[in-house]
């Protein structure tokens, strides 16, 4: 009895499969008639805004723009890489990850060189952007990636990663809610008060190691200056240098002072955002995208933005900032020109203002900073101090970065000392350098 039913299913299935094929065929027919640009993106919270902009563009120019969302971002990256293997990339797409991968895509011939478009009309397009935003998507002369000089992608927003502080909780601790914490010593002194009051101090997604890297790097710039940091990456300065040990030591001091929240090392950034949004943490280390997140979870959250507290007076504090999300054009696309035109429109003043208003992200267009909430403009002010690994022209070996970040995690959970971590990182650095030499 069971199998008679299954036989029926089988027949029904075999009959229905051709239907799929027919549906597939007919949709391809209609594609040939109209101009259509396909965009693959990963930004879930901007999907609605993108679709609205696509509608406006179609009304204006009769060109159809199809935004396809593929989330989460890991899955998006995999899809892009698979499509690149099969040369099935869409007209417009983005690459998440390091500059080295970006460079590889360009060298493989997947990405259109946009420099000529940027420099048309007295560099009109180029000058509409914050220079730091464009720098992330640019390859300078004599870069170490082997890519021809030029601009290869366009930013559609900018972001900075700084610290936020909860004004209500600071008041509860007896501190001035309107004066941000300026020095590192002040910062860790607050740690004692936080512990006494059974509160959580700093939260951040330090289970996701890159955020540790960001803060550590910020302090490295502060303590030894940009040139020494880059020299270390180039291999000219060892990680066992006293300045680096000071950097590692900062994390030890933070842990001992009690300013770090419990379980910081197993937190993903989303958890950290929940905690801060719900008034459970006094500080958070997060990027400007958090404005949209906090607004959704807790619209009345009373918070401010500040640079990470300075640990040294010798060099200025640095933060990471630059382009948030960027799009590039498929060099093999049959609709290259149309795609570039659309990008120009998307990064124009009005569209950037629209995106910024609806999604609470900072616009990439200099002239669109009109109507953004005050908290967001505080993030924008930080751009003056911003740098980004993608603009340095050199990249550290990923094995070294991994040892570096995991080492700091070990310091925070009290398993290793700063000196041990420094020695370990240097050991891996030397191993990687030898590997390259012997090849």
């Amino acid at each position, binding site marked *: 009895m069971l199998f008679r039913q299954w036989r029926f299913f089988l027949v029904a299935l075999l009959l229905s499969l051709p239907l799929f094929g027919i549906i597939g065929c007919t949709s391809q027919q209609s594609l040939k008639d109209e101009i259509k640009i396909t965009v693959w993106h990963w930004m879930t919270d901007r999907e609605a805004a993108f679709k609205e902009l696509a509608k406006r563009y179609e009304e204006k120019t009769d060109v159809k723009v199809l935004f396809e969302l593929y989330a989460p971002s*890991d899955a998006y*990256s995999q899809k892009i*890489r698979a499509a*690149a293997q099969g040369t099935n990339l869409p007209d417009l797409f983005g690459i998440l*990850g*390091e500059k*080295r*991968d970006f460079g*590889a*895509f360009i*060298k*493989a011939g997947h990405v259109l060189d946009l420099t000529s478009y940027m420099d048309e009309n007295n560099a009109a397009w180029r000058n509409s952007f914050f220079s730091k935003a464009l720098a992330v998507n640019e390859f300078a002369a004599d870069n170490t990636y082997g890519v021809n000089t030029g601009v290869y992608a366009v930013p559609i927003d900018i972001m900075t990663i700084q610290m936020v502080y909860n004004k209500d909780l600071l008041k509860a601790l007896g501190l001035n809610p309107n004066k941000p914490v300026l020095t590192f010593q002040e910062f860790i002194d607050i740690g004692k008060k936080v512990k006494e009051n059974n509160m*959580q101090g700093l939260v951040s*997604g*330090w*289970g*996701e*190691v890159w955020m540790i890297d960001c803060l550590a790097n910020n302090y490295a710039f502060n303590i030894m200056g940009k040139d020494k940091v880059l020299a270390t990456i180039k291999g000219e300065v060892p990680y066992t240098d006293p300045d680096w040990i000071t950097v590692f030591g900062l994390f030890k001091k933070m842990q001992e002072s009690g300013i770090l*929240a*419990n*379980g910081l*090392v*197993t*937190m*993903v950034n989303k*958890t950290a955002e*929940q*905690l801060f949004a719900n008034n*459970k943490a006094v500080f958070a280390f997060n990027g400007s995208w958090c404005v949209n997140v906090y607004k959704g979870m807790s619209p009345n959250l009373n918070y401010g933005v500040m640079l990470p507290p300075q640990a040294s007076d010798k060099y200025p504090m640095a933060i990471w900032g630059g382009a948030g999300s960027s799009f590039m054009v498929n060099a093999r696309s049959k609709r290259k020109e149309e795609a570039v035109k659309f990008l120009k429109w998307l990064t124009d003043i009005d569209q950037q203002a629209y995106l910024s208003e609806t999604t609470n992200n900072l616009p990439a267009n200099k002239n669109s900073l009109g109507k953004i909430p005050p908290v967001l403009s505080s993030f924008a002010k930080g751009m003056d101090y911003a740098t980004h690994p993608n603009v340095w022209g050199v990249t550290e070996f*990923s*094995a070294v970065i*991994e040892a570096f970040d*995991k080492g700091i*995690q*070990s310091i925070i*959970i009290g*398993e290793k000392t700063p000196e041990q971590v420094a020695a370990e990182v240097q050991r891996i650095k030397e*191993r990687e350098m030898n590997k390259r030499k012997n*090849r």
Partner: protein
Amino acid sequence: MIKFKAALENYVFVLPAVIIFSIFYVIPFLWVFQLGMFEWDGILPTKIFVGLGNFKEILFQDTDWWRSIWNAGYITMIALIFQNTLAFLLAWACDREIRMKNFYRVIFFIPPVLSEVVVGMAWRYIINDVDGANIINKMLVSIGLPQLVHSWLNEPKTALTTVALVHCWKGFGWGFLIFLAGLQTIPKELYEAARVDGANAWHSFKNVTIPLMIPVVVLVAILTVLGTMQVFVLIIGLVGGEFAGHTSVPVLRILASMRYSSRFGYACAQGITFGAILVVISFIQYRFSKRAKV
């Protein structure tokens, strides 16, 4: 001649499986296998041939890799001992004539059905103190054992075990199901015969149930090892990642090679090594089952 025709007929049975397998497994496998001998970032058309270099690196230099294997092995041991014993006991309990059998059968299968993402989120909420409800610790205090209170997911010593236990919770439903199916296929007549011969509950368990269930136990053990060694989504949900190496597992290392270091060839080599380890373990288990069969 007749034998040849019979063999040909028999081949027809395995033909569809072999065809699908050859196309969708063998070809990708060969591709990955030969990629293990290259240094490739997954994007550029150029690949650098390094022969056995990747494998040498994995065997002699990659301490993170072997730590991840050790961690996965630890979780698997806990699964084999704790999870499967639990599953067997539950299956045996539900095999008897008791009330609410159907209810239990449905309830126990809920954990496997839930996505690992939800399981990670829910259990982190249950266990964790800062961003959760801290239920476990509260229970320990209320039954008078405050000295056992720990930050289970955040302390290096307890994190891995906690993850292993949550994994057991998610996995026992499968063992339960297979053990139950196995227990059901033992003909009732055998139990009758045993009782007629004067055996009590323990004897019939020892002489009827266990011998007939050995192949099933081994089957579940092999599947448990294979499934548990590949755990990773749960770890991200519970502790955010590798927790300074304390909760590293092989799949996370392979993913790190692929995405973080952009060393696709090396990741393939790691995958092949991982597969080889699993094959050896499973082979040992299978041989053991053959020998233990009556």
